[in-house]
């Protein structure tokens, strides 16, 4: 027998309790990892490869306010600007679905490749899209979800404009961070909505990263004090502004995480106290045989630590494999495209488990230290 096998036998003496304790730690840490990943995905959304050179221009008043189409040539003339495309949210419902399950944007198809170079599609599909004003291209995820293929026709009824549009799918793209969107011709949109001369936003491709600050400042300045003042910002800043609309998500998730960890500590500490209390007499016998306080502390700590770490391996490890290797888009019905359990999050889970193991062993260790051999021997089995 070794000290390790002695500790293991003690930890597993009440198998049901040990299993339930490990499972409670596992479930809690799974939840904690899920919350931390969700928080990360919400506050640090994934970024497209080309995002570093894209600027989004929207109305300074609100995203819901349209911009005049006549702004385009003014933006195009700003030094450092390579391409400018309108980008208008159509807000269409597919089939009879109650909510919108994928986004649709009207844009200039000729500028798809210059602005969104990461979207990959066969050459013939690019050409077909550019040629046919009533065609659209669809992200791979949406195409797979609805089993749609090139040549199929789909109809979308806008919830914003009094228009229902029918499209022929000219291509299916992939390679972007969010392969769900539908893109179609802005001319088709203009035609269907009575040529309002309006766009939702402008998406601008800038020549180099060095040009980014100057271009955004120049665009903002170009329309300052006009009837349609704009707010130009990087794609990243634009994405993050959506998160701020969700309110203080960080505080909410942090609060829930704290409650999870606190509950976890209470459960584990209670389990450890119970396990040690019923062994008081045995621990007194060990003391009589010559085991010192520090060795008994080590036994209790090892048992508590083992319990917490086993739970962490199951919970955090389970989350790691599920989220990193599972089809998260399918699992969340498209709400999350990526749900990456980063090494930092795994580290936090291990740290919580380690702390848990230590904290849960403190109370039983103190009571064992305080109890003399004689008092311990008097306790009932």
């Amino acid at each position, binding site marked *: *027998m070794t000290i390790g096998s002695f500790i293991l036998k003690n930890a*597993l003496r009440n198998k049901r309790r040990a299993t339930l304790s490990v499972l409670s730690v596992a479930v809690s840490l799974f939840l904690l990892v899920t919350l931390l990943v969700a928080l990360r995905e919400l506050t640090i959304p994934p970024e497209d490869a080309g995002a570093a050179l894209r600027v989004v221009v929207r109305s300074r008043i609100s995203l819901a306010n349209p911009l005049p189409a006549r702004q385009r040539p003014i933006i195009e003339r700003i030094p450092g600007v390579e391409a400018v495309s309108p980008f208008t949210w159509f807000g269409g419902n597919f089939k009879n679905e109650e909510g919108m399950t994928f986004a649709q944007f009207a844009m200039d198809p000729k500028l798809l490749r210059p602005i969104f170079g990461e979207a990959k599609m066969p050459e013939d599909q690019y050409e077909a899209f550019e040629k046919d004003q009533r065609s659209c291209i669809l992200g791979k995820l949406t195409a797979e979800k609805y089993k749609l293929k090139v040549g199929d026709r789909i109809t979308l009824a806008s919830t914003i404009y009094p228009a229902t549009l029918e499209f022929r799918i000219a291509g299916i793209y992939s390679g972007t961070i969010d392969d769900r969107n539908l893109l179609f011709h802005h001319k088709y949109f203009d035609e269907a909505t009575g040529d309002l001369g309006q766009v939702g936003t402008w998406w601008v491709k800038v020549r180099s990263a060095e040009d980014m600050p100057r271009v955004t400042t120049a665009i903002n300045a170009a329309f300052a004090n006009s009837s349609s003042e704009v707010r130009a910002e990087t794609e990243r800043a634009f994405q993050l502004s959506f998160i701020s609309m969700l309110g203080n998500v960080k505080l909410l998730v942090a609060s829930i995480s704290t409650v999870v960890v606190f509950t976890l500590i209470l459960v584990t500490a209670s389990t450890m106290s119970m396990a040690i209390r019923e062994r008081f007499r*045995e621990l007194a016998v060990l*003391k009589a*045989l010559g*085991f010192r*306080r520090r060795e008994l502390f080590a036994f209790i700590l090892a048992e508590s630590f083992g319990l917490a770490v086993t739970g962490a391996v199951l919970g955090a490890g389970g989350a790691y494999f599920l989220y990193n290797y599972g089809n998260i888009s399918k699992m969340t019905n498209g709400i999350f495209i990526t749900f990456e359990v980063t090494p930092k999050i795994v580290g936090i889970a291990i740290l919580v488990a380690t702390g848990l193991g230590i904290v849960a062993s403190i109370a039983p260790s103190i009571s064992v230290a305080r109890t003399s*051999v*004689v008092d311990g021997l008097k306790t009932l*089995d």
Partner: protein
Amino acid sequence: MAEANIVTVRKLSKIYRQGDINVTALNQISLDIKTGEILTLMGPSGSGKTTLLHIIAGIDRPTSGECRVQDIDVTRLNESQLADWRNQNVGFVFQTFNLIPVLTAYENVELPLLLTRLGRKQRRHQVNTALELVGLGDRSHHLPRQLSGGQEQRVAIARALVTSPSLVVADEPTGNLDSHSAQEVLSILQSLSQSAGKTVIMVTHDPKAAAFGSRSIHLEKGELTN
């Protein structure tokens, strides 16, 4: 030549505090115990015999007085020194056996050796020798619940012997046993003294058990009466 004293107790007192009342468990006890003898401590409940045993064995501390075992005043050792001293010098046999239920007989006996520097092979040799000595060589892989009361107590004696201590303390070792098993246990303790030269101090209420001892002393209200 007179045999040397293994235990020398001088003016040993133990006073417990129970609420507002002081209870004198031992009152100025002085006592010598010779190497190799079997001393039985007798007396009514609450007379202080178990307290005296615990102080000699180093698991309790006196309020005053001196208790020397092999010329070491155990009352002056700190917790850690006392733990080491117990491991090397004292073997314990309890009334309720106090074996660890999740460990086999072999593992229970091996437990005190985990604190020593002995290798696995040497530990195995010592554990098997101790189990053979109490006649349980064939039961080494049984858990305590698979053994009879008498066998459990014999395992406890093997555990007490495995570190080759010079002193074995037994607190009513036959209190939970039938007469046959009690006889076996007492015979083992007697042979320890006679053939291995161990000093055995045994607390008992049973005059038959006391008869196995080479000397018997009586306590009453914390004082020696003979």
